[in-house]
């Protein structure tokens, strides 16, 4: 085992070209492990000699040894060490650290734990955001750092910061737990930003993701999913066929109260809903969903007003107030006004005689913006469809699938369908 100085010299010397880095990597792997951690305290001054950009790999190894050495980080000068880690994460070079991804993940996790311990989640946001970009091999890959980053954003209430990470579509997932956490936290961030449709998407993914056994994250996600879908659509859709079997069977049992809430919501009477919420507020509070439930309540009015647009062409404000169970016509006017501004209904309020007339959607599809909008949707759809086709092909070649279909076909001896043979790839025969 070389001495630390020799190691540091190696790091400084061999961080030039990719071959040298590979050589350095093997050296470091040899030097890694308990011996390095034992010298953890001595490593810190050496870190000052190395620069995070050029010597990223070596820096990473040393840093990780310090961080996971188990000793309290205050030995290393507490807050300063945090700054060191943060600086490293922002400045490191992506190629080098991808050679040792698990070490990198360890460092990120240490940062997150530290930051949460110090109850200053906001300090971790910028470094982790940089870290996410660096370790992703493509923008479509999900890493464990995503979940940690979103958690910090939530705790710091910096919802907008989380948006940049949430906007990418994810196509590759390595650990299912990452996906669940990502979808759950992402959904919560969108709820915080009041972007309910997008929250619904993410929570839907969390609920319908394949799982062999029900997990707690999915159950929590389901509770929020029920509430958000009540706000957005006014009803909770049934499980689609790609939901896992275990979820379909037992999810509702764990979220019984929410199911009852949704049935009471569909009855359409505000007062009933209100009493139900009051009665069960303790349960909602314990799930940290009380704020969301209150929003469900207020969305009840919107739902009822929207229902009115389908029956009436014009309606007076008093009638609206009466049918929606609001106290005064002024409240009704405010609600309607807000809904018109949000674009949820199309109507005009005539203030002279207090009549509201409902209109059709005035979109004529005559504008250039609509053209560009549709065009970009078509492009996105083409790209998506190509991806789907390739996944479908991979699935057809999957051994588990072939085993199942091959078994079925064996039963029909002599009565085979020539069509079946087309979908089976020839390379397996």
């Amino acid at each position: 085992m070389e001495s630390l100085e020799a190691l540091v010299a190696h790091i400084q010397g061999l961080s030039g070209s990719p071959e040298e880095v590979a050589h350095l990597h093997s050296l470091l792997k040899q030097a890694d492990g308990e011996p390095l951690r034992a010298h953890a305290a001595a490593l810190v001054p050496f870190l000052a000699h190395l620069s995070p950009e050029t010597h990223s790999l070596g820096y990473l190894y040393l840093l990780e040894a310090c961080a996971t050495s188990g000793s309290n980080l205050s030995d290393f000068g507490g807050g300063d060490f945090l700054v060191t880690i943060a600086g490293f994460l922002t400045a490191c070079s992506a190629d080098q650290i991808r050679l040792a991804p698990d070490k990198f993940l360890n460092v990120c996790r240490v940062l997150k734990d530290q930051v949460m311990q110090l109850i200053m989640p906001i300090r971790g946001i910028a470094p982790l955001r940089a870290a996410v970009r660096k370790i992703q091999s493509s923008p479509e890959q999900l890493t464990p750092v995503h979940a940690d980053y979103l958690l910090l954003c939530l705790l710091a209430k910096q919802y907008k910061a989380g948006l940049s990470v949430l906007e990418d579509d994810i196509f590759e997932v390595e650990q299912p737990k990452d996906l669940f956490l990502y979808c759950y936290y992402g959904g919560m961030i969108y709820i915080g930003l009041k972007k309910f449709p997008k929250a619904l998407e993410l929570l839907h993914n969390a609920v319908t993701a394949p799982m062999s056994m029900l997990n707690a994250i999915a159950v929590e996600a389901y509770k929020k999913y029920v509430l958000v879908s009540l706000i957005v659509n006014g009803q909770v859709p049934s499980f689609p066929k790609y939901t896992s079997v275990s979820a379909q069977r037992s999810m509702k049992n764990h979220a019984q109260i929410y199911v009852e809430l949704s049935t009471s919501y569909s009855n359409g009477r505000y007062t009933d809903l209100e009493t139900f919420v009051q009665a069960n507020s303790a349960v909602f509070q314990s799930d940290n969903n009380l704020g969301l439930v209150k929003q469900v309540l207020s969305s009840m009015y919107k739902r009822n007003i929207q229902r009115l647009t389908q029956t009436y062409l014009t309606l007076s404000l008093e009638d609206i107030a009466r049918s929606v169970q609001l106290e005064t016509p002024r409240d009704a006017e405010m609600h309607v006004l807000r809904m018109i501004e949000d674009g949820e209904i199309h109507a005009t309020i005539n203030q002279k005689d207090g009549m509201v007339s409902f209109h059709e959607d005035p979109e004529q599809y005559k504008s250039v913006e609509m053209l560009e909008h549709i065009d970009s949707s078509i492009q996105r759809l083409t790209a998506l469809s190509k991806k789907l086709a390739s996944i479908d092909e991979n699935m057809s070649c999957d051994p588990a699938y072939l085993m199942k279909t091959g078994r079925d076909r064996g039963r029909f001896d002599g009565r085979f369908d020539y069509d079946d043979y087309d979908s089976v790839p020839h390379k397996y025969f």
Partner: protein
Amino acid sequence: MSAPSDAAPAVSAPAPTTTAAASSGGFTFKLHPLVIVNVSDHHTRVKAQAACSGDSSSSSSAAGAGAGAGQPPRVFGCVIGVQRGRTVEIFNSFELVLDPVSGTLDRAFLEKKQELYKKVFPDFYVLGWYSTGSDVHDTDMQIHKALMDVNESPVYLLLNPTINLSQKDLPVTIYESELHVIDGSPQLIFVRSNYTIETVEAERISVDHVAHLKPSDGGSAATQLAAHLTGIHSAIKMLNSRVRVIHQYLVAMQKGDIPVDNSLLRQVSSLVRRLPAMESQKFQDDFLMEYNDTLLMTYLAMFTNCSSTMNELVEKINTSYERPTTRRGGRGAFM
């Protein structure tokens, strides 16, 4: 008329059997497309069978006719139709077998077929015979003379199966036989005749259908639309490239790389002025609305396509991973 046993050497003497002159017989020939389809179909089938079996099929006289091994075998048959006065209308045709040894058509078969056709079409007579090839062969006169006892003046229909893309007309020629005096002796030679194509409504529909069938994909509606759109696409592409050329030329002229040519400029200017240019708001609205409609339809089609792929994928995943398995940490792809 001379017997069909006219010695082969006499016929194979390099006496020309055709002239380029048009027939002076005064006959008007009308050809129905069914005949052309039949002949080409016969030829294609025989060619395909020969390719499959590797040796020439029974009806070919490829060896006898002196055709090389690389040539497709010649096919023979009979044409039937109606002759009213000077108008000869060829309606239908059927295949015949050529005896490779004697070089004559099988008479018994011909008579049997003739009888059968008489039962269905009492008006149709054997008007002549057909064959394929790029030009008239020397042995053809033999066969022609043999048919003369069925019809005093049979017609000979020749289909050229080689596909010549530059040729605009049909590769079908009709020959009559005439007695001409050549080198002092009267000889029967083939002379070309003009013909017209005559169609009944039913024939027109089927010919249209056959003409539009592409070998690769079925569904004439889809291929027609694709062909139409490809045509428009290539036309627009050409227009675009031409406009670009003019534009580059003008830019170069403006920069001074090319000497200014006023006459060309005048032409360009007049061309530009001739273009219809509508600037009204109503035009914009209607145009954009139609554009958006088409885009929406494309979007809908793509959507349906995508959804069906997704549905299949979900089915596959469900069948494979229906019961929970222990290996859960594997790679998957989710949105």
